[in-house]
């Protein structure tokens, strides 16, 4: 009955007064270093582009017995496919074969046929589970469209937050989001997760989650700015973060719990997506506190309090009463 009626636990005790802004330099520096490192990783060694963005052929096959990679590689080479790459899939008798992009559709068909022939030779009784082929022109276009969608999404977020809050909030949010995205890209490079259209969707989901998180914290800051007219911005930001801490951690827990089983045993097609999501949740949650808030503090320390005269005690009381 208790489980049904009363809450069982709190993630953090009520009324915490953690001085998050003391760590503002540390947060910004760590974030800047990680993002710069990610940027470096983006150029070298670079992301492992999936077939959507690189073009080429990917085939997944199931063999009757666990496949011998050297044998398959030799057979593929014998069938004039020395460029074929092999990769193990989740199940132990499954193999993924990838080929570089071919000049045209006929050449692609011929290459796929040769893979079939090579597999039949090495592993008779195999089943080809799936075949995908993407032309180079399509992949370039998909990449551009993806980037464009991402850029415009950020622009809309900037405009909306600017409109509803102040420009300092908007800049803080968008800069933080860009830092989040670069870190996610760095994570993809390190883990060698494949960057394809599904991963773009994952990054955008992270973007949505992270934005949501920042807006909630900002919302409380805006409210407190109106409520406590004389409180220094630094204290006010710390207070707002502390007040929203249970909600911030609670929401990140629910999303994390939803994504965790997908990452553990979701099957090859959504595992990568979910792993990127888990990383994004951790980054998105911590950046609301350690990046977005310090940026706001630096941008707004003078300006956000500029017009406000020290409030008289009775007006503060009035505010309280109205609430």
């Amino acid at each position, binding site marked *: 009955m208790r489980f049904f009626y009363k809450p069982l636990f709190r993630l953090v005790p009520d009324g915490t007064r953690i001085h998050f802004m003391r760590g503002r330099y540390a947060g910004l520096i760590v974030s800047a270093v990680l993002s710069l490192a990610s940027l470096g990783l983006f150029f070298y060694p670079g992301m492992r582009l999936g077939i959507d963005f690189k073009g080429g052929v990917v085939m997944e096959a199931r063999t009757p017995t666990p496949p011998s990679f050297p044998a398959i590689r030799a057979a593929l080479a014998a069938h004039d496919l020395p460029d074929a790459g092999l990769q193990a899939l989740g199940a132990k008798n499954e193999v993924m074969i990838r080929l570089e992009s071919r000049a045209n559709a006929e050449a692609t068909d011929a290459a796929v046929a040769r893979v079939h022939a090579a597999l039949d030779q090495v592993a008779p009784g195999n089943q080809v589970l799936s075949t*995908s082929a993407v032309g180079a022109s399509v992949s370039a276009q998909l990449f551009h469209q993806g980037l464009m969608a991402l850029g415009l999404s950020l622009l*809309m977020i900037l405009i909306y937050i600017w409109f509803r809050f102040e420009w300092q909030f908007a800049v803080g949010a968008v800069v933080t989001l860009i830092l989040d995205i670069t870190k996610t890209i760095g994570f993809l490079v390190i883990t060698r997760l494949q960057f394809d*259209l599904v991963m773009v969707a994952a990054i955008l989901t992270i973007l949505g*989650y992270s*934005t949501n998180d920042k807006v909630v914290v900002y*919302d409380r800051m805006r409210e407190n700015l109106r409520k406590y007219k004389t409180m220094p911005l630094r204290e006010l930001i710390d207070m707002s973060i502390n007040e929203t801490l249970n*909600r911030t951690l609670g929401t990140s827990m629910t999303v994390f719990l939803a*994504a965790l089983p997908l990452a553990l045993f979701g*099957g090859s097609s*959504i595992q990568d997506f979910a792993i990127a999501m888990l990383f994004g949740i951790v980054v998105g949650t911590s950046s609301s506190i350690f990046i977005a808030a310090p940026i706001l503090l630096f941008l707004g320390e003078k300006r956000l309090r500029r017009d406000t005269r020290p409030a008289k005690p009775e007006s503060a009381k009035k505010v309280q009463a109205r609430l």
Partner: protein
Amino acid sequence: MLYFSRLKAAIVIGACLLGLLLCVPNFIAAPLKGLPWPQIHLGLDLRGGSFLLMQVDMNAVAKEKLGSTLDEVRQDFRKASIGYTRLASDATTNQVQIQLLDANQRAAAITALGDMLNPPNGPGSLADFTAGGDGTNLILTLSPPAMQARAKAALTQSIEIIRRRIDSTGIVDPQIAQQGNNRIMVQLPGITDPQHVKKLLGETAHMTFHLVDESVNANSGQQPPPGDAFLPMQDNPSQKIAIQQSVMVDGADLTNAQAGQDPQTGGWVVNITFDSLGSRQFADVTSANVGHPFAIVLDNQVISDPVIREAITGGRAQISGSANAQAATDLALLLRAGALPAPLTVVEEQSVGPELGADAIRAGAISLGVGFVLVIFFMAAFYGLFGWFANIALIANLIMMMGVLSLLGATLTLPGMAGILLTLGMAVDANILINERVREEVRNGRTPLQALEAGYKRAYGTIIDSNVTALLAHVMLFIFGAGPVRGFAVTITVGIVTTLFTATVFARLLTSRWYVYRRPAALPV
């Protein structure tokens, strides 16, 4: 805030039930034919099948237009007796270049070409060409807007013809849609080896009947004389036939094509029936050319070149030369469906076997289910009764989301399902915000009713702001994203909207009913 009139409560419950009703078509078959029965489509990763992305060759559209223009210019000039020394098309600049014999005839030449240079439907409509050059040099340039209109028409027509071709193969539930300015997406559930379909869709299938020019030898290695073309035989490409380029009868003028067997030879043939215009033209040409051969040309290859034994007036003809039953059936199908306005090439292809589908569904379903249960347990443990209210709202949210996605006929892939689950994980954020607020108000010493009122009211602004920002981002994605990303954006956008309803309105209704019924002295927060 907590007060709901009976009407309002009924509307809220009604909206939830409507969501449930919209989900029904996914589980039972349509009771009546013709009844709208919108369903969620399962993506190919879930049920196996093929995906083809085909590109329309727009250069060929321009080339074709330039080619037919040469014919028209030739005819117009013959009618108006205008002499010229050179007539050529240039596909790189989209121009037709004419060298006139006499500069004085320039004005007359432009008048003769009236139809091409003047807007066909009066001012405001688009002319196909603009005239340029000076003196004896006359240049016709294909105007870009006319070219765009033509490309658009070619794309629409290609989609229609692809649909007809696929429909006649009997593939169940194909999806055919335009993608971008020059691509067509085709999804074929259940077809795991798309080679045959690719072949069917790849054929332009433009059939024309021409007279054979018997005065030249096509295999002598010479250039064809003006107005002629040397085309290879389909079954023996090294042998060429000299045909007269002007089209005697066009394959577009036929009403039916059926595969059959010739009772005399036993070979496979396609029997075709012309419409009235085609019949008349065919009768005229055959009666004037008895004893001479004519050529049946498909996509610039000669299928056969029979000799006309007698005038064919009934509008029926037979095309021999098919290698086997399959080839004859395919040719008949292509002729019935009509010719593509331009060649199509496959630029992206995916096929998924049913085994992968089954495995993926199992792993995906288990992990999605576990994720959902974890969220439910967390909310219950973290918020108690109010957590359960949030959970009921969450289930209502899932149902409404499914309902709206069914209504839109959305396609659900495995990543899409993961997206739905994560949307639900984020959806409880609204309830978390409300519950935290209510808790704060209780801690500030408010009575249960005041705390609930204030909690809902204050959380509102935050919920709207955070969801609208996310919504805007996803609308951008929908507008500018491609393919799967777009589907993903639709799913999440729908999820955000249903979340706003269930998390705030529906959960509030639950809370208010509970409060009115129980009148608790303290809130379980």
